[in-house]
């Protein structure tokens, strides 16, 4: 009970503890799967959302715009200090349904490529799966060191509204991690 006597310091420490407790509660949700694959030149990842796919499908079926923001981070694992960040990539994918024609416009904001599909599963797969996505050049990594790839996915229903706190507050619905080492 010492923190109760130490006044504001104790209160602030408790608040920090509560926030740390809160963050994993938001993130913990059968996140999905993540696989890291490295070929001769590029390190790629294949990530897929878990239960969030159903919510995306329901929204797209009802004609609601949906988008997924993929934050892909690669860091060198350090035992006694914070991990050393090497790569940080953000991929935004959007789907705009057209109820009249029963089609879905797929938009990749990173590449600017769009495509219209007439199958809902294709649209859901577009949002909930990154397949063999190239993350970084293999030459940036050391084959003797351990690395960790972290994928945080934010799922947006409706139009993405950029609030002032968007850069601070990331309501990630899924977090996936994979430790890897180059062979």
């Amino acid at each position, binding site marked *: *009970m010492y923190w*109760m006597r130490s*006044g504001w310091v104790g*209160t602030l420490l*408790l*608040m920090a503890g*509560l926030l740390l407790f*809160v963050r994993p*509660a*938001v993130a*913990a*949700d059968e996140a999905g799967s993540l696989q890291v694959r490295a070929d001769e030149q590029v390190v790629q990842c294949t990530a897929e959302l878990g239960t969030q796919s159903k919510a995306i499908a*329901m*929204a797209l079926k*009802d*004609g*609601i715009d949906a988008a997924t923001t993929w934050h892909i981070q690669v860091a060198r694992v350090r035992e006694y200090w914070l991990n050393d960040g090497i790569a940080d990539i953000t991929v935004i994918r959007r789907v705009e*349904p*057209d*109820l*009249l*024609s*029963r*089609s879905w416009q797929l938009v990749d904001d990173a590449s600017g490529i769009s*495509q*219209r599909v007439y199958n809902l599963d294709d649209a859901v797969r577009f949002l909930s799966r990154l397949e063999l996505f190239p993350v970084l050049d293999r030459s940036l990594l050391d084959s003797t060191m351990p690395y960790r790839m972290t994928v945080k996915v934010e799922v947006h*229903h*409706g139009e993405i509204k950029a*609030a002032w*706190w968007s850069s601070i*507050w990331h*309501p990630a*619905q899924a977090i996936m991690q994979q430790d890897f080492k180059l062979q």
Partner: protein
Amino acid sequence: MMRLVPLFMAAVLIFVTVLVWPSADGDVGILGWINVTVMLVLSLLLLRYGMRLLRERTEPKPGSRLRAKLVVGLVGLLLVPAMVIQLAASQMVERGMDVWFDVRVDTLLDRALNLAQGFYERLEKDMKRSLLGYISDGVLVAAVGGNMEYLATTAYLTEIREREGWQKAELFDLNERQLGGVQVGELSALEPEPLSDAARLSMRLGRVATELKTGADGEVAVGYAPLIGTTSVVGLLRVEMKLPAGVIQNARSVESDYRNYRQLEHNRQAIAQTFTHVILFVTLAVLLLAGLIGLLFARRLTAPIGDLAHALHRVTEGDLDVVLDEMSQDELGSLVRSFNEMTSRLRHHAGAIEQGQQDLTKALDKSRQRQFVLESLLANLHTGVLLVDGSGRVRLLNQAVRDILHLPVNWVPSVDLLQASQGNLQDIGDFYNELKHQQEEHLQREFDISLPDSRLVHVLARGARLNASASDFSGYLLVIDDISELAEAQRNKAWAEVARRLAHEIKNPLTPIKLSAERLQRRFRAQVDNHQVFDACTQAIIAQVERLQRLIADFSTLARMPQPKIRDVSVNVLLREMKDLFHGYRRIEVRFCDEQWRCACDPDQVRQVLINLMDNAVSASDDGVSIRLYASLSDAWVEWHVEDDGDGIDEAAASRLFEAYYSTKASGSGLGLAIAKRIAEDHHGELLLVSTAAPTHFCLRLPRYAAEEGA
């Protein structure tokens, strides 16, 4: 009980926090987290304050409790209606949601969307049906095969465009090269639009396909019909038909409304939560604001009370110089003014009390000084003093009266004088009684008092009545003096005068009488016939004259006792002289002492005393009765003891033994022991009768050293 209020409020707040905690999949945004953070902070503050209240043992800062109660009370007063409003608002939102998302609206929108979708389907089906008729059109296949001129191809395309009502018709070969094209109005672009994925798919699969496009002029339906030759697809007919603007606008409106509705429905829970959190945020803001205002108000209200409590505390500790500032004209200001007035009066009274105390202390000191002087005076006074109050109880008696009268131990202050004056002290009681009942203010009496050691003490008692008019005390003052020595001295002086006169008047005729008697005896003895009678008579005259001469000599000695010639004398020498002097008496035992024992005395006078004592012992005891003479030594005294085992001395004789002219012997002058006693006193010593019988014991006690030597 009041101490538990903050803890109770904290518990309620934590419970509400848990209730409104944002769910992981909820979309309440940052507002929910702000709310729970604020509530957690508030609950922690309340928890902390409650714990501090519970642990608090010492007196809190003046006014803090009242301030806390005011704030808690104000917040608590607002908390209940705020929670009611919160619940009511939540219920209203829930009800509103139910109305908004009514199933009829849902069905209506579904049907509207179905209508819009049906319109599009209809258009697509019509377009596909029309296009199916041109899949194997010979003219078009021929044109694709290069068997027709461009103009003919264009004319044919114009014909079918007008026939089908299309706005545009284009012909492509397998290489996606435009072979011809017509459209309503002027050409929109010189370059043909590249084929879309749907068009390529249509060619690859050999199926008619349609798609919708949104252009600058509005939406158009685009149809693709693969041209199939004899065995395979050889080209593609692409046609466009502009959709009617009004219908399309309505259809898009329906789609937009449907989408918005579905989005709202999809976010229904989030909207409710958002609304709840907005209301909660407002409620918390109001509560915080109220708490802040309450705190400011309470601080403003309790600050004078706290100052007053603090000032009272200081006054309680004795600081009367406290003055409070009069800040307001309200009741608190009046209170402060009254407090200042009270402290001013207290200061005044305290000053007066302090001055009075100082005066009293001075008077007490003086009184104690006087009492000390009086007690010292009484203690050092050789005159006995007895102070008796009006009720006859002794209030004060000094040591001198105890020494003079040998008062028993029960004579203490508060003892009743008449009851205590029993036995040998009866005369004191009688004297007090006479003083008490007489009319005169003063009384003086002389009387003898026999002491427990059989001595008589002659006292002079003087009494005075103390009147209450002079002081608060009324009673009697008895002053008692031991005048035994004075009386004896007067008596001795009188006897000395008598002796001197006797010596003067009688001594002179005695010698001629004795000489005459001796002459008669010598001259006329031969002439008388009865010699025996003559001798007896003359011898009797001579003997009596000699006796009278000795008597006169003793009188002279008593009257003209010389001053002792003090010198250092061996005690043993005096004992040896006594041994020699009385060596004829075998029953006398003289015990010698250490040769080193010395005494400062006049050896002639001491020898005279010892001879007198030994002579008395011999004459008072029969033959065969042993007599002992020995000496003893102490730090200050040398003592010669004479004991005999004779019949002893009776009590009546013992009390008068040392009086002059008192003798138990027929031929004694009664001056021997009186002279011996006088010699002892002249040596600053004493002659004591230690015991009257078995053995009869006399003691001559003399100081070892001369008085001038300070021994």
